[in-house]
C-alpha cells in the first residue's frame, strides 16, 4: 500500500514538472472546488476555488483546464459533446466561468477541473425543472367568417402569448368534411411568418394550388372545393415560447364558396359619415370581407390639411365592417378615406389588381395610383 502510494506521489511530482500542456492547473485537480453562484440579476455562474495556478495562465488555458458540459439526460456522459460556451475571469484566487446563455432548467451540467495529468475532478449540478402551466390559447383565427372562398389565400392564427417557432406546420392541420387530413395544403416556409411579438402566425395556402396553370394545381388540384366543408385544427401539443403546451386545441369549421377573382372596389363601399362635434365612428361596410391584418394598416383617414385622424380602429362583422372612432371630436369639413392599393381581400385580390391577372380576358383597368382616395364630408349633426 505504502509502495503504491510512493509511486503515485512520484508520478504526481513528475507530471508537475511537465508544463501544463496548455492547461492552467498544476498537477492533480484534487484540491479544486467548483460551486454554482448567482449574480444579483439572477444569472448563474460557476466558481472554482482552491486552484494551484501555473504561471502564464490565460483565457485559452482556462478553457483547457475548466470545462462545463451540458448533459441532456440525467447521469449521462458528455463524451463527444463540446464544452459550454462562456467567458473566464480569474481574480483573487477564484476563477469564474459565466455561461454565454442562462443555464437551462431541467438540465444537468458537468463541471470539470482538469489537471496537467489529464485527470479531472467533476461536480454535477442539476438546474431544477420549472413547471409551466398551460395557459396559452388560440385567441382568434382570421378570416373569421364561416364561409370562405375556394381560392382563400391565408389564415392568421392569433395566440394569447408568444409561441415557440419552428413547429407550425406539424401542429396545424386541415380536415375535410369526412374528418380526413387534407395533404399539403399550406405553403411550408423555413422561416415561419410570425409577427414581431410571436403571437400571430400567418399561414399561406400553397399558392401553387391556387394559381391556375401551375403544376401542383393541375396535378393534385386546389386545396378547397366549393360546396365542401373543412376544419382548421390547431393542436394542443404545440408549445408556447415558455415551453408549455396550449391549454386546449382549437378548431375552426367553415364552408367553401366559389372562387373570388374580383378586386375590392372602394367606390362600392358603403360609408357612414359621422356628425361634426361628435366622436361617433366613421363606418365602412364592404361588399365582401377584406384581409384582417391589412385593414389595420392600409386604410386610414386624413383631414383636408392632410393630417391623419388618430383614433381607435375596429374591424367587425367577419371583416366586412371597418370603423374609426376618433380621439377628438370630428370638425366639420371634408376628409379623405385613404386606401393603399395593396389592400387585399381573402383571396389576395388587391385593390390595384386581382391575385391573378388573366392576360387573355378583359380585366378591370388597373389603378395606377398607389393610394386610392375617397372624399367624404362631416357636417354638423341635426
Amino acid at each position: 500500500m505504502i509502495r503504491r502510494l510512493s509511486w503515485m506521489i512520484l508520478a504526481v511530482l513528475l507530471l508537475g514538472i511537465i508544463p501544463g500542456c496548455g492547461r492552467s492547473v498544476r498537477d492533480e485537480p484534487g484540491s479544486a472546488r467548483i460551486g454554482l453562484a448567482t449574480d444579483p440579476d439572477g444569472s448563474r455562474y460557476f466558481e472554482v476555488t482552491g486552484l494551484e495556478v501555473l504561471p502564464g495562465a490565460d483565457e485559452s488555458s482556462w478553457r483547457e483546464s475548466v470545462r462545463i458540459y451540458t448533459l441532456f439526460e440525467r447521469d449521462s456522459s458528455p463524451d463527444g459533446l463540446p464544452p459550454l460556451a462562456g467567458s473566464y475571469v480569474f481574480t483573487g484566487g477564484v476563477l469564474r466561468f459565466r455561461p454565454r446563455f442562462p443555464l437551462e432548467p431541467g438540465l444537468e451540467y458537468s463541471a470539470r477541473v482538469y489537471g496537467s495529468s489529464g485527470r479531472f475532478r467533476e461536480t454535477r449540478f442539476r438546474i431544477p425543472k420549472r413547471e409551466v402551466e398551460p395557459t396559452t390559447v388560440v385567441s382568434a383565427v382570421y378570416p373569421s367568417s364561416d364561409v370562405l372562398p375556394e381560392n382563400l389565400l391565408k389564415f392568421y392564427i392569433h395566440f394569447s402569448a408568444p409561441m415557440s417557432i419552428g413547429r407550425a406546420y406539424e401542429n396545424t392541420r386541415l380536415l375535410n368534411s369526412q374528418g380526413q387530413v387534407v395533404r399539403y395544403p399550406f405553403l411550408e416556409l423555413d422561416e415561419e411568418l410570425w409577427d414581431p411579438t410571436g403571437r400571430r402566425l400567418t399561414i399561406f395556402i400553397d399558392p401553387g394550388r391556387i394559381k391556375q396553370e401551375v403544376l401542383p394545381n393541375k396535378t393534385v388540384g386546389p386545396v378547397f372545393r366549393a360546396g365542401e366543408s373543412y376544419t382548421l385544427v390547431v393542436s394542443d401539443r404545440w408549445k408556447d415560447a415558455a415551453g408549455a403546451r396550449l391549454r386546449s386545441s382549437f378548431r375552426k369549421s367553415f364552408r367553401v364558396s366559389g372562387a373570388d377573382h374580383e378586386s375590392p372596389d372602394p367606390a362600392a363601399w358603403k360609408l357612414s359619415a359621422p356628425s361634426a362635434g361628435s366622436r361617433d365612428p366613421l363606418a365602412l361596410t364592404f361588399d365582401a370581407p377584406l384581409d384582417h391584418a391589412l385593414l389595420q394598416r392600409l386604410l386610414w383617414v386624413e383631414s383636408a390639411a392632410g393630417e391623419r385622424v388618430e383614433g381607435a380602429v375596429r374591424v367587425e362583422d367577419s371583416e366586412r365592417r371597418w370603423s374609426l372612432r376618433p380621439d377628438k371630436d370630428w370638425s366639420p369639413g371634408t376628409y379623405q378615406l385613404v386606401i393603399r392599393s395593396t389592400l387585399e381581400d381573402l383571396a389576395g385580390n388587391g385593390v390595384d389588381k386581382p391575385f391573378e391577372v388573366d392576360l387573355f380576358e378583359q380585366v378591370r383597368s388597373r389603378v395606377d395610383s398607389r393610394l386610392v382616395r375617397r372624399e367624404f364630408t362631416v357636417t354638423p349633426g341635426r
Partner: protein
Amino acid sequence: MKLKLLACLALTCSLSISLNPAAAADLTAGMKTASLELKSAGPVAFGPQGILFVADPLGAAVHAIATGDTGKVAKRKPVALDAVDRKIAAALGTAPDKIRISDLAVNPLSGVAYLSVARGSGVAAPAVIVSVRGDKLETLDLSSLKSASFTLPSVPDAKATTGRGRRRQSARSQAITDLGYVNGRVLVAGMSNEEFSSSLRSVAFPFDGSGKPASVEIYHGAHGRFETRSPVRTFVSLNVAGQPYLVAAYQCTPLVTIPLSDIKPGAKLKGKTVAELGNRNRPLDMIVYTKAGKEYMLIANSSRGIMKVSTVELGKHPGITERVAGGGKKGVPYETIEGWKGILQLDRADDSNALVMRETEAGSFNLETLPLP
C-alpha cells in the same frame, strides 16, 4: 440559401479584378468592431474576403461580418460532424429541441462551415453563428469581429400600426427567404407576413450608404396567360451565354431565369419558366459547380431528393409557354441523384465537394462532405 459564389462568378471576379483595381480593395475597411447584436439569424451566404452575410429578418437588416477566416488552408479537413444539433445545443447549454438551425454557408477560402442558429423557442430567442472546421465546433464571438449592417427600407405604411400612443406596434414583418452576394451586390429575397408580395432587393456592398437599393417585384407568368406576384424561395446566380442570370425557385414551384441586368429600382420582373419542380415539393437550396468542364446546378428538394441540371440546358431552354398535358413535367431535363436523401441544407464545399446537412432516421442532423455528382 447558400453561398452563391460560383465557378463562373469566380471567373467574372478575376476578370474584374484585372480591369478594376478597386475590386481588390479591402472590403472590410469601412467595418467597425461594434458589438453586433443579431435579433435573428436566417439565411447566410459568403462573399469575398471571408465576409459572411447574415439575414436578420426580425431586425429587418442584413449584416456583413468579417469573420477573419481569410487564410487559405494548405490541406483542408472536410467538414464532418455527426449530431451537429446536439453538439450546438450542448455548446449553448440547452436541449437539442430548443435550438433551430436556419441555414449554413461554407467559406470558400477556408472550407469552414458557418451555421445560423436560434437558441430558444420563441421570437426572442438569441441568434448565434456557429462555425465548424473539420469536426471542431465553435460559437462566434460577434463582439470581437468587425461588421457592417444594412437596414432594409420598410414598405409604405409598414409602420402604420394598431393600438395607440405607446401601445402602437406593427404586426407586419418581412421574412427573408434567401440572400446571396453577386458581383458586388447583396441580393435579398423576401416575402411579407401580410400582403402576398414578392420583393427582391439588390444592395451595393460595402454598405456605404451610397446609391439607392434596387427593389423589384417578381411575377410569374403561367404560359403567357396568368400573371401573379411570386415570392422567391431560393436563388442562385450563374452565367448564361456570358450574361449573369438569377435562377430562382418560386414558392409555387416553377424554376425561372431572370437576367441580373434587369434588376433596376422599381422594375417589375417576370421570370422565364424553365422547369416546374413538381407538386408537394419544396426547393430548399441550389448550388452551381463545374465538373469535367461542364457546368451543373444541384437543387435540394424537400420531397424529390437532389436534382442535377445542366446549366447549358437551362440557358438553351426557350421557356415553358404551353400547357403540359396530363400535368407532366416539361422543361429542362434533370437527373435525380440517388443516395442523397434527407438533405436539408446544401452548399458548395470546394470545387469537387458539397457540404450537406442531412437528417438521420433518428431525427438528428449530420454535417457531411460529399463528392459533387
